[in-house]
């Protein structure tokens, strides 16, 4: 069954889009990632113009994050205080990110920079996480993510000033590391055009040592605001949010997120980290393949819009 999209100016299959929304919503509820890094390329693949794909996926992420975060909230798995500190850093970071993005654009090669930073970031985070969680799974049992000692981390964080008590996360640490982390995510999300959940989640587990269960809910909480802000920005500057496309994605997404949260709770935390690491590595491989393999058509078009 086809429906015509008013902004993308093309028809799409209703069930295909809702199914895609459900799959991405499931990942979002389970891992606390937004899922834009899967959704955007897929939408472009079926012919949605890139600006519309980028803008509309952020609308769907608002919906699936709200759906997921409420369920986590009820179970006491959202650390609002930590989320607020991350968000504060994130907003500062996005302002810095815009400067960096414009500087890169002026130098050309912004695409290459983005692709390479994705591959390097995802490859190293995914690889480290995969190794760590595989060890944990083999050891059979360490159910409390983040209590393992990693090189670095533990000691220097504890010496910093501005200590705050994050009750939900059972942490008493300086507010500076999470704020700095927020800044980094903010910069990355502007430059790379993603919400940054897949970087934030591992960082909260390994750098801040938050319990895995709380990490997912807190990440979703943070993502709601980032995605809402990004939807508004796209709607105002590019007029590229397609309400009908968003509606179809949301219909699948909010339901998928509910199942994702439920399923994620049944997973042991070491297994969950392993699955997330696998997902991150898959995305990294896909992007690396795009860089390395000979493209079907070396020419690519960027439609800048109607004159």
């Amino acid at each position, binding site marked *: 069954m086809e429906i*015509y999209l*008013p902004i993308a100016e093309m028809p799409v299959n209703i069930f295909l889009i809702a199914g895609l929304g459900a799959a991405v919503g499931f990942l979002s509820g389970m891992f606390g990632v937004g899922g834009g890094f899967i959704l955007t390329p897929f939408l472009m693949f079926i012919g949605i113009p890139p600006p519309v794909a980028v803008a509309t996926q952020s*609308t769907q992420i608002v919906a699936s994050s709200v759906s997921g975060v409420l369920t986590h909230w009820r179970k006491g798995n959202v650390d609002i205080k930590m989320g607020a500190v991350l968000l504060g850093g994130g907003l500062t970071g996005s302002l810095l990110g815009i400067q960096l993005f414009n500087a890169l654009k002026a130098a050309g090669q912004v695409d290459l920079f983005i692709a390479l930073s994705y591959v390097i970031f995802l490859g190293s985070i995914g690889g480290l996480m995969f190794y760590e969680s595989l060890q944990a799974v083999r050891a059979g049992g360490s159910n409390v993510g983040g209590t393992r000692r990693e090189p670095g981390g533990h000691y220097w964080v504890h010496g910093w000033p501005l200590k705050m008590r994050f009750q939900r996360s059972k942490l008493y640490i300086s507010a500076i590391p999470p704020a700095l982390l927020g800044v980094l995510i903010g910069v990355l999300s502007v430059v790379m055009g993603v919400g940054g959940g897949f970087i934030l989640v591992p960082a909260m587990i390994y750098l801040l040592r938050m319990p895995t269960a709380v990490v997912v809910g807190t990440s979703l909480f943070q993502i*709601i605001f980032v995605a809402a802000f990004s*939807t508004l920005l796209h*709607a105002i500057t590019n007029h590229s949010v397609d309400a009908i496309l968003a509606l179809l994605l949301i219909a699948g997404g909010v339901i998928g997120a509910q199942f994702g949260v439920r399923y994620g709770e049944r997973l042991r935390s070491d297994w969950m980290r392993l699955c997330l690491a696998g997902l991150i590595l898959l995305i990294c491989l896909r992007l690396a393949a795009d860089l390395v393999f000979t493209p079907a*058509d070396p*020419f690519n078009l*960027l439609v800048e819009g*109607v004159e």
Partner: protein
Amino acid sequence: MRLAAVFALAVLLTAGFARAEDLAAGISRDKIEITSSFSGTDVVVFGAIENEEGEALPATEMRDVVVVIRSDKPYTITVRKKERVGPIWINRDMQRFAGVPGFYFLSSTRPLKDIARADLLSQYELGLDRLAFGPAPGAVGGPKEFRQAIVRHKQTATLYSQHEGGVSFLSGSLFRTTVRLPPNVPAGNLKVQVFVFAGGDVTSTNTMTLYIDKSGIERSLSELALDQPFVYGLLAVVLSALAGLAAYVVFRERG
């Protein structure tokens, strides 16, 4: 020499007479509404050629007809070419083009090269390789392959097409062609042009307009998105948050 001069005069005279020919043309529909179930549509462009006395042309008079439908909504497009540097493919050269039509359809009685000379075809932008768009202001021209890449991509997207032999004559004077408007045809006005050729020259033309407009909810949404972008964006955010809330409530009650 004299023979050649007489021949040239004869050609000029026939051309002069031919210009007095009259072309009447029409479209099966001149307004197309895009609704939520729009999946492309067909329209028929037809016409009749009459001689200077207002009579239908006899079947012995050979005429060529070219029908062009194009969107004059011009786009600016950047084309980049990837090249291999070490192990990876990166964008190297780029060119910006302005005035690229969003839609172009051509149908003709015969291959274009048999109908008229290349310079005349170029003058009227007849043929996918003769579209007049060029480098954007401030951009410099470069290899032709960048231009060709645009045409190729648009052809793949079914937005550009060329059908040599697509126009058929029902009698000496009546012709018709079927135009396929794909589902992704840009909304806005399309210019429909009919050219009649005789002896390699244009003898008459006719220009019509085909209105393509969104209607119903499609129209209201795109108007809101353009006129009230902040309200539209805010609505999108609030509605998606509410949808998330609704799913949570429904699932909580189910257990």
